[in-house]
């Protein structure tokens, strides 16, 4: 073992970042798509939890974790579609609806999830990327899940589509200026409805990762604010899917500090390090809310930024 304790901690943080970042990435990509169309979905925390529960339940009953991932996506789209539909009604506040959907999604998940806390469902496999190093710790750290690769591919596809396709243009225009989109004959409500539904699908898949890979079981404390942090992460990433991926890794690494230090016996301040991602999010929000770059990149119709 070369390097001693600092090396072990760094490797553990790297491995943790790779493991923890995927749900952030999916939720952030979903939120990015929704916000690009000019609407905010604060309910993705509920979507994440419901996705985790449905993935676990379907995987348990069918024996196929990938069917679970699909089910999680469908459950997420259902919540997204509900959000999208309700926000279309006049005089309805999308931030308040988000809070309500957060409670509602968590409520459904906990209600039906009670039966699945005990049993063990088949989990997703992983890809060994680090076997060539010959270092067992690095090899463990570099175990990654296929969903992470899917997430990165989705991010690249979204980034390309926003810039180069007609659909991307329509979504961006609905987000930047609803009147001009309407003048083009685009139904802004429909675009936002579809973007929220698709965003819900991605967030649901992020939930599937939580219950089927890491931490890899279903319980009520599975997600504690990841869905919400991802919303802040999108602001930090300035609505760019590629930057969302990078930001997700940063968040994953921050979340991994506590467990990594614990693995080498440093337990002092464990709760402080547990809170590190929230504190980081808050600081990032303080820093990015006032920045002129964020002011330039923000979709014009978005209500969440002043």
């Amino acid at each position, binding site marked *: 073992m070369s390097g001693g304790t600092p090396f072990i901690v760094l490797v553990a943080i790297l491995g943790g970042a790779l493991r923890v970042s995927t749900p952030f990435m999916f939720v952030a990509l979903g939120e990015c798509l929704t916000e690009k169309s000019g609407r905010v979905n*604060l309910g993705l925390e*509920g979507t994440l939890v419901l996705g985790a529960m449905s993935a676990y339940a379907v995987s348990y009953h069918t024996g196929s974790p990938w069917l679970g991932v699909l089910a999680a996506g469908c459950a997420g789209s259902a919540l997204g579609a*509900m959000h999208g539909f*309700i926000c279309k*009604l*006049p*005089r*309805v*506040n999308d*931030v*308040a*609806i*988000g*809070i*309500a*959907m957060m*409670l*509602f*999604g*968590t*409520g*459904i998940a*906990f*209600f039906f*999830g*009670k039966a699945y806390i005990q049993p063990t469902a088949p989990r997703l496999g992983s890809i060994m990327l680090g076997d060539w190093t010959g270092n067992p710790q690095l090899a463990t750290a570099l175990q990654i899940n296929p969903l992470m690769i899917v997430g990165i591919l989705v991010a690249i596809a979204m980034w390309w589509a926003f810039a180069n396709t007609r659909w991307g243009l329509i979504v961006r225009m609905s987000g930047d200026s609803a009147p001009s989109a309407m003048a083009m004959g685009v139904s802004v409500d429909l675009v936002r409805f579809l973007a929220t539904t698709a965003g819900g699908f991605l967030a649901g898949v992020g939930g599937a990762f939580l219950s089927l890979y890491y931490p890899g079981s279903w319980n*009520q404390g599975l997600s*504690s*604010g990841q869905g*919400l*942090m991802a*919303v*802040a992460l999108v*602001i930090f990433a300035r609505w760019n899917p590629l930057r969302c991926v990078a930001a997700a890794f940063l968040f994953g690494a921050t979340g991994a500090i506590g467990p990594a230090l614990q693995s080498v016996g440093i337990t002092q*301040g464990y*709760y*402080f390090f*547990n*809170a590190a991602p*929230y*504190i980081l*999010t*808050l600081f990032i*929000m*303080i820093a990015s*809310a*006032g920045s002129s770059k964020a002011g330039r990149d923000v979709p014009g119709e978005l209500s*969440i*930024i*002043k």
Partner: protein
Amino acid sequence: MTEASGFVEVASAETFRRDMSIRLRRSAEYICIPLLALTMSALLFSVFLLAIGKSPVEFFQLVARGGFGTAFSIQNTLQRAAPLILTGLAVAIPARIGLIMIGGEGALVLGGFASAAIAIPMIDHVPPIPTLLVMAIAGAATGALWVGLAGALRHYRGVNETISTLLLTYIGIAIMNFFVEGSLRDLTNPNKPSTKPIGDAYMIGKIPGTDVHWGLAIGIVLAIALQILMTRTTFGFAARVTGGNARAALAQGLPVGRLIVICTSIAGVCAGLAGFFEVAAIQGRANASLAAGYGFTGILVSFLARHNPIAIIFVAILFGGIVASGGLIQRRMDLPDATVLLLQGLTFVVLLVSETLYGRFEIFKVKTNGERT
């Protein structure tokens, strides 16, 4: 001369009657639509219960019995309504100034923790009444700081208050866990990490003749005081103007930043006091049980009451009853404990959908005949 003054009298009587009619119609709308939303969500929940093969009749009977059926259950309900009034106010006051703040849970937990922590060195050295007073002040001040911080960040840095308050909730719970499992842990209690108990002699008493603690009385008094503050004072008027249109308020020269920080701090005081009462009247110590979800239910309470402090008292009692009957429902109907959470989430969604109904019903419409109202 006499004719003219007679005309003025008739006109003012007419104006008065019209004003009353407008106010009545408006309040009728504000009461009827939330009631309709409540009925709708009860119906939807009944359909859901039928779909999973449970009896909705039994469910609502159990809510009625477990929440309001006996003298004991009514007192249990009021016991739970007390923190809900306070956390409801913690959402309502910022809402009046146009902010959606959902950090009541964090301010409750930290406020409760602060009051438990400050009591530790005072126990056995200082008599109970001053100790409780110091505890209440510590709880309220911590809450004010916590929520006021989110208000200040909102105004001075443009940080979205909904996200920041929820983040601060997670941070607040982590801070409490850090101390409760670390330096302030009561080592004589191996079961659950807690601070040292404040002891029976230092617990705040019950309202005489009842089994309900003083938090209910304080909650009701605060609700009435805040209703007066928001509707009958210059401060409340300025706050409501800011809530209606912040830019117009700035143009009028109103101190928007100060108004926001004061309103959010008031919200924090309410939530922090809820935490103080949970510690001083129920738990006797600070531990993870403080994060029981009162802060989140308070959001729904405030929205259902349309952010009206007086209405919050009644809605809080209703939801106190639903929360109180949760255990009975769980046992008798074999439903998971998340049933109440699901019902709350459903009610919240239906309630927000009902917002779209305002101004759509002919019966509530005020006939203006082209005149200024």
